[in-house]
């Protein structure tokens, strides 16, 4: 690893100020589970000049419940979220997403803020020493299209450029399904909007902006999270899916379903949601919703299997939401 400047920020303002001073050449570090790997492998042509450590900022590591609203500090570790009784009781999708992230050791390091700000996954983009100068690095093409794309987007390339890397956060789809809000040093946005960016970024954050807390509104329905990965620990998802279903008199009144690891950003399965509105949750409706979720899939040469898995994850997440008595 090369040398770099290192700042321990005492406040959010101080962190923002240092980031602003470096004008995009500094990187935020909290748990470090993503950023250190990127730096060690030198995947980017430019190396960060400075790291701004925000773990030293007090007051960002907490889980509160106020009138049914769950508020989680950005520095809260994933293991704490997974084990939190309030989160488990009202937002099971979030607790399960945290539990299924990485491994125990990594969950004890990684924070929810870092998890939703992590960079995309693509073994061309992340190949050490910048071996593939791909679109996302300012190069001319996406190597995955004609290469080995078994873990790449099944819903096309990024809107602006055609990068097939995938966003693999386990927390992100749960937050989208739960309609959470992300509070930053500058603003508050809905989780879904937080990830709506072009190829060159993974979040809407400016270079001098950091996440401070996450607010999950009082859930209107039961939620569930499913993850498909090759191994039960460590691995990023091949496909994951979070769903929340509000039920009244046995019929779905509100549905929010979000897949991840299938596209450059968390993928809201709106067609599946439409299928579910007004019907009861059962094998047939969930199956139909699963099919609807993948209706826009355009798999590449080697990732057709992900479509089938995505369909199944949607189906299973919906079926697991059929718990009207639990909230």
């Amino acid at each position, binding site marked *: *690893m*090369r040398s770099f400047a290192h700042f321990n920020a005492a406040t959010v303002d101080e962190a923002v100020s240092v980031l602003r001073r470096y004008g995009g050449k500094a990187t935020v570090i909290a748990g470090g589970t993503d950023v250190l790997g990127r730096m060690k492998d030198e995947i980017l042509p430019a190396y960060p000049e400075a790291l701004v450590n925000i773990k030293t900022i007090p007051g960002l590591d907490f889980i509160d419940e106020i009138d049914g609203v769950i508020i989680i500090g950005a520095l809260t570790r994933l293991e704490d979220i997974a084990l939190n009784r309030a989160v488990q009781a009202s937002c099971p999708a979030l607790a399960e997403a945290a539990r299924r992230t990485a*491994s125990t050791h990594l969950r004890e390091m990684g924070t929810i803020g870092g998890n939703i700000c992590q960079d995309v996954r693509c*073994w*061309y983009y992340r*190949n*050490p*020493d910048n*071996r*593939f100068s791909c679109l996302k690095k300012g190069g001319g093409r996406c*190597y995955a299209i*004609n*290469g*080995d794309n*078994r873990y790449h987007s099944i819903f096309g390339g990024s809107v602006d450029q055609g990068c097939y890397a995938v966003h693999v956060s386990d927390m992100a789809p749960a937050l989208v399904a739960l309609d959470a809000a992300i509070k930053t040093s500058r603003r508050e946005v809905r989780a879904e909007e937080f990830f709506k960016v072009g190829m060159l970024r993974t979040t809407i954050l400016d270079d001098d902006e950091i996440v401070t807390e996450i607010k999950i509104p009082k859930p209107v329905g039961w939620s569930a999270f499913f993850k*498909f990965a*090759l*191994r*039960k*620990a*460590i*691995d990023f998802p*091949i496909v994951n899916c979070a769903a929340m279903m509000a039920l009244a008199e046995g019929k779905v009144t509100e549905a929010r379903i979000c897949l991840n690891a299938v596209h450059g950003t968390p993928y809201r399965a709106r067609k599946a949601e439409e299928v579910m509105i007004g019907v009861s949750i059962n094998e047939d409706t969930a199956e139909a919703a699963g099919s609807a979720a993948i209706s826009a899939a355009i798999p590449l040469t*080697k990732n*057709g*299997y992900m*479509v*089938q*898995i995505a369909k*199944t994850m949607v189906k299973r997440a919906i079926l697991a939401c059929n718990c009207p008595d639990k909230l």
Partner: protein
Amino acid sequence: MMDSDFDYEIENQDFSAIGKRGIWRIDGREKASGSAIYTADIKLPGMLYARVFNSPYPHAGIKSMDTSKVEAFPGVRAVLRSDDPEIKDKVVPGSYGAPWYVLPDWAMWEGEPIGLVVAADSEQICDEALKLVEIDWDIRPFITDIEDAQKPGAPELHNKVPNDIYDAVNENNPYASAFSELFRIAEGHRTFEQGSVKKGFAEADKIIEFKARRRMHTWAQPEIPSAICRWNGGYPEIWVKHQHAYEHKQVMPVWFDVPMNKVTLHVPYQGAMFGGWNWMNWSTVIHYISALLSKRTGKPVKLCFNRRDDFYGGALDCGTYEFKVGAKKDGTITAVAIKSDYVNGPTAAEANTGIYHFIENSRIPNLFKENNSVVVNRGPVTAVRCEQLANTLCFNMVFSHVAAELGLDPTEVALKNDGYDGEDSEYLTECKKRFGKPQRDSLRECIEAGKKAIDWDNKWHTPGTRKLPNGKMHGIGFVWTHEWNSKRGAGTVGVLFEPDGSVSLMAQRADTGLCAETAYCQIAADELGMRYEDVFLNSHKDSGFAMMTPDGSCNLCTNGWVIRRACRKAKRKLLEFAALGYQEEFHSYPPAFEGCGPEDLDVKDSVIFVKANPAISKTVKEVVKEVMCVQWWKHPQIYDWSWKQTGAHVDPTGEASEELIDPNKRPHFCRQAHFMEVEVDPETGEIEVTNVVCVNDVGKAINPEGVQGQQYGGVYMAVGRGKHEEVILDEPTGVMLNGNLLDYKITTILDCGPIDPIIVETAMGYGPYGANGIGENVADLTSTLLGPAVYNALGVAVDDFPITPAKILKALGKI
């Protein structure tokens, strides 16, 4: 007449350490506490770090190279170029004596170490400096897939080291071994036939044809390799991370003008191996580079690799397989013919690879094997976690397909075909008698134990017929073969009674494997009559003696014999000293047991006693306390040593016939049988391994916990290789995509259900006390057990390893 040390003595043994549980591992505290030192940990004063340049192209040569910016980079202390007059085109003996370039100037795979080496104040400086080299490349066409490589118009690839140079280096290397042949990266075609498969197919009721494929998987050792050398004047001192550490001392005189007695060898703890790296030619040659750079700079040099560097290479079974099998309705197999195309040479170097286990433990009379080597632009293939992978893959595939196609219980098919070299199990029984072994039916015992443990009779079913309440398909698989052999290697060991009454075993051995050194101490304790805690083997130290390396699951059999023999000799000396004392011109030492002969004495629990009256006793410590060869003390130390070539027991009767002596005519008597249950999710293609039962007839378990450790570890390694271990290259560029432990997927402890490790002890092995090796057996044999288990679940064969979700879904017609 053979030495009586080589009798089996399997009955009526009252061991105090051998076979006992709860024995403290001699390396346990250091490893468990994190205080064990590995080569990767070592930092010497003034040490420089060195890194080799890796080819960015899978097939390319260096036309010219400008290293001026590299040399000028701050912190760089030396640059070694491939066109340096001292090493240009130089080929030297490498691992196992196999010739390899010190530093080639052309690459056969992306990532191959070529062109230049940088030595600098830190690894980071090396990495940054290496990026500044300017190379004019001769980029050549390449091919990475074995099937594509056989299509018309595929690029023509040549041997890495031309045959004439290879042969010349071998000729001039006094330590060249037959194994070096296994390192040629060369095209080749060999066939083997025993009996007549044409006749065998004609006798069959059914002909079964199928294909299988094994993608490249690799060793993934935990400790990243490095090589350290420091020249102390004219004397080199080396720190070796390698399974074959002693070879590095041997090869220094061949490389440099320095005799072996001037070479100091350090062998720190080894962060596991799993074969692979140790068999890569340059795993030894990197010591040449660190030695040369150390000599030139006058500083210690540590040549470092990184995690990605350690993924360039794969296992011997990487290739494609076509099977044709003839069988009778009752499961009797009449003929087996297999054609295999293997990657890059070594696997095809022997004509019977793939058919070998049919010869070794079946009564199938008609066998045919065709082995082809296809050279592609990938790293070399070599013995990864075992060299028998192709053999067990073929054996497993044939037996599981025959049983499934005929609708028979695969355990019955195994029992029906058990035998040796075309002869049936009755012949095996005759052999057991001839070799002085118990006449037990090892396969039947293993199968019965395994079936009971996994509840086979209630769980086995016709393929594709059992759907579970959770919607998944249940499958159960079975695989078998013989236990691993003990036919090679040599070891030497010294046994020394220290003046405080403790015993040092003296021999160097890389601590690869699982508690082998502890097992040697157990053997020594029982043979000497010492308490286990009074015996110690410091295998890191180069005492001049070297044990059989931890290869081929042979080392316990070889080294166990050596230890036993040396200890018996040393014990005799101890008792002679105790009974007779010592007298010389100027010194004398009275006997500890006046009036006794050595034969009247024995040792137990580190106490020497009179056999006729055990109350008359003295501790070993008391007897040897003045034994020290310094100053005015009186007696040289009591010690002895012994050696043994091959782990195989040679001749129990002392009337050695040619058949008894020839290790190639020695049937395996012990068997292993493994059982695996899976649940396959037809909607996602996910395979869950829910239950594994391993049954190993290890003959005699010297260290039962060590045996079970190998069974557990073997299953985890095997499940990974069955499900998801694969070195993946980008086909358009030939660049490796998953050279790290996140994207290359070793099984975690959560990815396998309960494992039941069962030990059977028939004492029919050729090792001491009738033991066999266990190191590689389970990891090798069960790596394709997932195939039959999935076949049983789905009723469809998916024998393309690793069996990924995509392959399952495709087989089910879901994609």
